[in-house]
């Protein structure tokens, strides 16, 4: 049967099991919207800005592990989506973004709402396509999903000219796809795995450093079993939080620039470092020259280009984290060998001394709300089981430090690109995926205003998100750097003319609350959480000058921390 490109598009999405498409219509995608209108398999979610569509799809993907799908029009629709695509790219999130394009005959003529979208997105996608013939459409969509979800995941953009959506062709969705130029590794090399195990068992001061790759590879269970079997201390990166239960004794907290004293000191002093699905990001490593000076390093990663990119490693293993960890566990069990018990005892003694520093302590105040206290109380009130999204800045670090994630896929933030405006639309994506779960967006008065228009979307779809606005009147992280490194010259970090967030929320038909006293924090959070079917915007007026500690200043060694 012959179908139009638009109908083929919709059928392909249904074949891929797509539940939601986050998007915004426009001229170049009208035929596709017309086809979406006439079916009920795929639900389209109308956002209020294309950036929010990409973040919502991204949040959906991070929470479910399934690819997020975006549909926007040509020109400004596509350029607005770029920030969200780049965000997904930096954090290796599976996403397929469809962008409209002017009709093929007009491409290159500077037509109305034309941009070279393949050109603009090229550096921030895993791959992109311009569909030039309707006969290629189905196969291109299949390829897009295949590329986005396999190997190291990432966003794929498919640019569809308007006439392709109206041209007709025979429809057949390819069951399988194979590409001679793309075949991700499916197994780690057995010899390397054996070598890694041997090295790990010689360790006197071992350390597990694990990242977002564990979450993406669905390897949390294997990692937990592996770490417990060895009894080694473990730290998670910002992207990896929840992959190992945060309440477990072996967990030393997050590492890096605002990581815990014990995690960073254990990194600095370890003799064998086992990096799992982590990429030695500069916010983790600090100064490369001073990084883990006494360690031999094992690195497990699906992406060969991640290995020895910034830090030279001794035993690289290219493969899916879950498969490699399972193989390692099997070898460990078979061999019956165990770590050096005496050395481990001494190592843990040292670690407990570092941990006793209690580096995250803060001074509670009777008058002013401490941002840390809000996150701690949110953790308590939600029983640690909420999906928490965040924006970028101090509140993001407080969330990472004080909400103890025991499960993967629950902590959703823009770690790589650091996109302000991410948290709220991402929470929408999560809430669509899990309508009955508690979804909290921890944000600040700076970040929330970058995608605040989505209060309207939440009204339309009755999304009961809980917005935890840590409002200190400052771009807090900027202010902190200005205090530490620019002698207190607070250039443009103070936010004047803030809206009345309570009234703003109410004007969209939501519930607004303002909380000004520490004594009211817990009660207010409980009250908000009890409103299961309402979005509650909680505006917490917090300490204006609170800083995030500990801090490893950029370019320093991991043992060179500023403590409270």
């Amino acid at each position, binding site marked *: 049967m012959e179908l139009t490109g638009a109908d083929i598009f919709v059928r392909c999405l249904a074949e891929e099991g797509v539940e939601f498409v986050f998007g915004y219509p426009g001229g170049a995608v009208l035929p596709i919207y017309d086809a979406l209108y006439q079916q009920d398999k795929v639900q389209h979610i109308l956002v209020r800005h294309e950036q929010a569509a990409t973040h919502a799809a991204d949040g959906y993907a991070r929470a479910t592990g399934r690819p997020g799908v975006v549909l926007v029009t040509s020109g400004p629709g596509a350029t607005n989506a770029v920030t969200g695509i780049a965000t997904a790219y930096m954090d290796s999130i599976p996403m397929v973004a469809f962008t409209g394009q002017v009709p093929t005959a007009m491409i290159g003529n500077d037509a109305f709402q034309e941009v070279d979208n*393949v*050109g603009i997105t090229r*550096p921030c996608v895993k791959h992109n396509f311009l569909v030039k013939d309707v006969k290629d459409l189905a196969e291109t969509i299949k390829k897009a999903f295949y590329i986005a979800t396999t190997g190291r995941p990432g966003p794929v953009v498919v640019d569809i000219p308007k006439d392709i959506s109206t041209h007709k062709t025979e429809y057949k969705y390819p069951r399988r796809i194979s*590409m*001679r*130029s793309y075949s991700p590794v499916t197994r780690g090399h057995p010899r390397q795995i054996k070598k890694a195990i041997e090295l790990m068992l010689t360790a006197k001061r071992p350390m597990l450093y694990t990242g977002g790759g564990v979450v993406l590879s669905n390897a949390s269970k294997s990692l937990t079993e592996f770490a417990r079997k060895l009894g080694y201390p473990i730290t998670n990166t910002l992207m990896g939080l929840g992959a190992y239960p945060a309440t477990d004794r072996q967990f030393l907290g997050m590492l890096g620039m605002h990581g815990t004293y014990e995690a960073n000191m254990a990194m600095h002093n370890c003799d064998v470092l086992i990096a799992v699905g982590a990429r030695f990001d500069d916010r983790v490593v600090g100064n490369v020259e001073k990084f883990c000076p006494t360690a031999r390093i094992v690195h497990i990663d699906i*992406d*060969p*280009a991640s290995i*020895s990119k910034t830090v030279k490693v001794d035993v690289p293993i290219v493969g899916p984290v879950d498969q490699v960890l399972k193989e390692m566990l099997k070898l460990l069990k078979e061999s019956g060998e165990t770590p050096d018990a005496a050395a481990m005892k001494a190592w843990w003694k040292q670690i407990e001394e570092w941990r006793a520093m209690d580096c995250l302590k803060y001074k509670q105040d009777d008058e002013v709300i401490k941002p840390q206290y809000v996150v701690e109380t949110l953790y308590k009130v939600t029983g640690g089981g909420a999906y928490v999204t965040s924006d970028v800045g101090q509140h993001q670090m407080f969330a990472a430090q004080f909400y103890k994630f025991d499960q993967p896929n629950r902590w959703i933030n823009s770690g790589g690109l650091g996109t302000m405006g991410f948290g709220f639309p991402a929470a929408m994506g999560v809430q669509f995926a899990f309508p009955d779960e508690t979804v909290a967006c921890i944000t600040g008065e700076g970040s929330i205003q970058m995608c605040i228009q989505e209060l309207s979307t939440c009204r339309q779809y009755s999304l009961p998100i809980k917005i935890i606005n840590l409002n200190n009147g400052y771009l807090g992280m900027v202010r902190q750097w200005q205090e530490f490194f620019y002698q207190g010259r607070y250039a443009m970090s103070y936010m004047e003319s803030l809206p009345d967030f309570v009234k703003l929320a109410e004007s969209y038909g939501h519930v607004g609350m303002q909380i000004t006293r520490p004594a009211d924090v817990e009660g207010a959070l409980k009250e908000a959480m009890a409103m299961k079917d309402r979005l509650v915007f909680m505006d917490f007026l917090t300490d204006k000058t609170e800083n995030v500690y500990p801090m490893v200043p950029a370019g320093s060694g991991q043992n060179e921390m500023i403590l409270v």
Partner: protein
Amino acid sequence: MRHIISILMENESGALSRVAGLFSARGYNIESLTVATTEDPSLSRMTLVTSGTEDIIEQITKQLNKLIDVVKLMDMYECAHIEREMMLIKVRASDGGRDEVKRLADIFRGRIIDVTSNLFTIELTGTSDKLDSFVDVLEPSDIIEVVRSGVMGIARGEKALRI
């Protein structure tokens, strides 16, 4: 150190810009780049000359391999190989200088492919060093125009870059 990297890639529009974009985005340098389709019209072969430390070259080859359009690549410096570049050079050649230019072209096994009363256009093939040397021996003020193809490379013997 200088490396010649040969790449087999899908003959898709935009494939070249993915490679060029990768180099500019990551700050790698390209000394020369040449690309054309192979006997299989679905494949292009690109030869890229770059330089850097071993670590940088390793990253370059890994990042290139990561591009979806790249089917296969080979660092020519890891095997015995032959390197060639072609140059077309237009040189002033009048009066007494005419014989001298002709003689130099012969020494370098160049071919004169176009002649006017006061110009020679010479075609010369060889390694980049050889082409550089030829340019060096000419009087700079006599050189009107230089066109170079960029380097091509191929492995010696049985070894081949093919799918």
